[in-house]
């Protein structure tokens, strides 16, 4: 203790120290809440409360404007299942989209990751190139691909004509029987980057010695992939599949930018049909019921994923 300090000063210091030690015990209880409060409050108000309120609203018949809502129980869900044909079209389209998303971007991403994981000159540049479409907004991706599919001026029909395959040219986005598939292809272009990146990260955790050992044992590239690489990528694969599925069910912008649900509602997804019912036809009850259905579909993939994310704590 410094000689210059008066007894009063010393006493003051000591009491402050013990006070702060005591305060820190109390603090420990409420201080974390203080750190959490801003994020938790805005998140609860903007995301959680609307989610719960939407589920509640799906039990009412309401046009969104009238002061009174009529409680109808599960009637909206009944109407969707029995009377709303577009709902079934949208559900089927979502299913097709989901299957495509689980197959195409994932396998392409895996293939690219394996190819680009080897350290040849320029591998980093190629990684960036293949990842690039993923940083574009889906609205922009939709606009770019709309030109590609343009019946006269689009790259696709021009290339087909130039290759002597004029018979295969068509008005890609106006043909009700096929319009969904060109949109899925455009979405795939955007969706490959994330699985590629995740698989690359996964591959880098596999020790080189394992491959060397397998090589010494006489395993060719295919067998090394099947028996060394792939089993060790199992965790990554699960994460990739869950994230792609969740993202696939969120698809919305690209439909809006490319077909707007048409022709004749044949490319509606649950997400876009929810928008149409709610904001164009003022069927708020039906719209929110669709949102709930979409959420339940997402949960099928999300529950295992969230379990995985919180498992290590």
């Amino acid at each position, binding site marked *: 203790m410094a000689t210059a300090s008066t007894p009063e000063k010393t006493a003051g210091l000591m009491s402050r120290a013990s006070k702060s030690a005591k305060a820190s015990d109390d603090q420990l209880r409420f201080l974390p809440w203080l750190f959490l409060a801003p994020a938790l409050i805005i998140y609860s108000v903007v995301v959680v409360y609307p989610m719960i309120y939407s589920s509640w609203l799906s039990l009412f018949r309401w046009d969104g404007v009238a002061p009174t809502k009529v409680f109808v129980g599960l009637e909206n869900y009944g109407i969707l299942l029995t009377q709303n044909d577009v709902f079934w079209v949208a559900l089927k389209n979502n299913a097709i989209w989901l299957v495509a998303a689980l197959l195409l971007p994932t396998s392409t991403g895996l293939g690219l990751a394996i190819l680009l994981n080897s350290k040849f000159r320029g591998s980093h540049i190629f990684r960036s190139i293949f990842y690039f479409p993923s940083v574009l*907004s889906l609205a922009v991706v939709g606009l770019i691909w709309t030109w590609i599919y343009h019946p006269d001026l689009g790259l696709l029909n021009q290339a087909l004509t130039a290759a002597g395959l004029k018979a295969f040219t068509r008005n890609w986005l106006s043909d009700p029987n096929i319009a969904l598939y060109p949109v899925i292809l455009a979405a795939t272009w955007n969706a490959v980057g994330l699985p590629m990146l995740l698989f690359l990260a996964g591959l880098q955790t596999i020790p080189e010695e394992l491959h060397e050992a397998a090589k010494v044992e006489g395993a060719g590239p295919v067998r090394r992939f099947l028996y060394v690489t792939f089993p060790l990528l199992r965790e990554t694969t699960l*994460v990739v599949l869950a994230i792609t599925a969740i993202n696939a069910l969120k698809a919305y912008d690209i439909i809006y930018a490319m077909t707007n649900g048409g022709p004749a509602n044949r490319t509606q997804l649950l997400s876009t049909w929810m928008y149409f019912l709610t904001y164009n036809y003022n069927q708020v009850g039906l719209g929110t019921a669709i949102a709930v259905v*979409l959420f339940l579909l997402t949960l099928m993939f999300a529950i295992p994923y969230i379990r995985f994310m919180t498992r290590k704590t």
Partner: protein
Amino acid sequence: MSQPLSQNASAPGKSTKVILFYAGLILATLFWLAPVITLILTALKDAGDFAVNGAFSLPKFIRWANFSEAWETGVKNYFWNSVLVTGFKVPIGIALESMAAFALTHMHFKWADRIFTYILIGLIVPMQMTLVPLTLLMNALNLIDTLTGLTILYIGFGVPFGVLVMRGFFRTVPVAIIEAARIDGCSWWKIFYRIALPLALPAVVSLCILDGVATWNEFILAQIFLRSDELRTLPLGLVQFSTQFSTQYDQLAAAVLISVVPIVLVFLFCQRYFVAGIGGAVK
């Protein structure tokens, strides 16, 4: 499979293999980038040239005026709106998210796991689940058709991903450092912004970039909550632009290209942060 190809190129058979390998890869790249190349070629062309020669041909002459015309017809507004929203959303969001993530990782908080799970739900909620109640709420608060309102929504929806990424990185900050600071009498607030946050700086940068790109690209909330043309952000404005000027492909392509330039720049200069950020989110 993971052989360093270029280094084994001495044997004659190998070198043809290498050439074939690169040729194949470059072909695949061209194929992959064809939509972007088309976009650039279209943006540089004059409308007549486009109508006659189609999308995939070199421009007869380069018409830079497409860009200035697109800029003046409205892209300028959309662009600055996007800058404004992203510029406010990202820093405010990261401040809130990192505070929350710090509390969840280092403050010995017995509710931490439950709160984290509660926050993760936000990652999977389809936007459609929230639209109607949010419309009512924003109406009541007079925030419909304002950039402020949109920014608030973006901050709320950004919380789950931000907390996830920041938590992933805070967990790598050694507990010993935090404990040592506690023993030295450092307050939690000081530990957060003087020790933990600087140590997590790479995470902050990663999150800035991922979040910035996501905000720049966001569509559905902007579509629902912005009504007047002069407030539209880029993705929304571009789609609107495309329905209004559906035949002026040259200008539309220029507009799209303008909207993409900031993203490309960020991507080119900060690539490793993309990888780090996405890695942090799934760790």
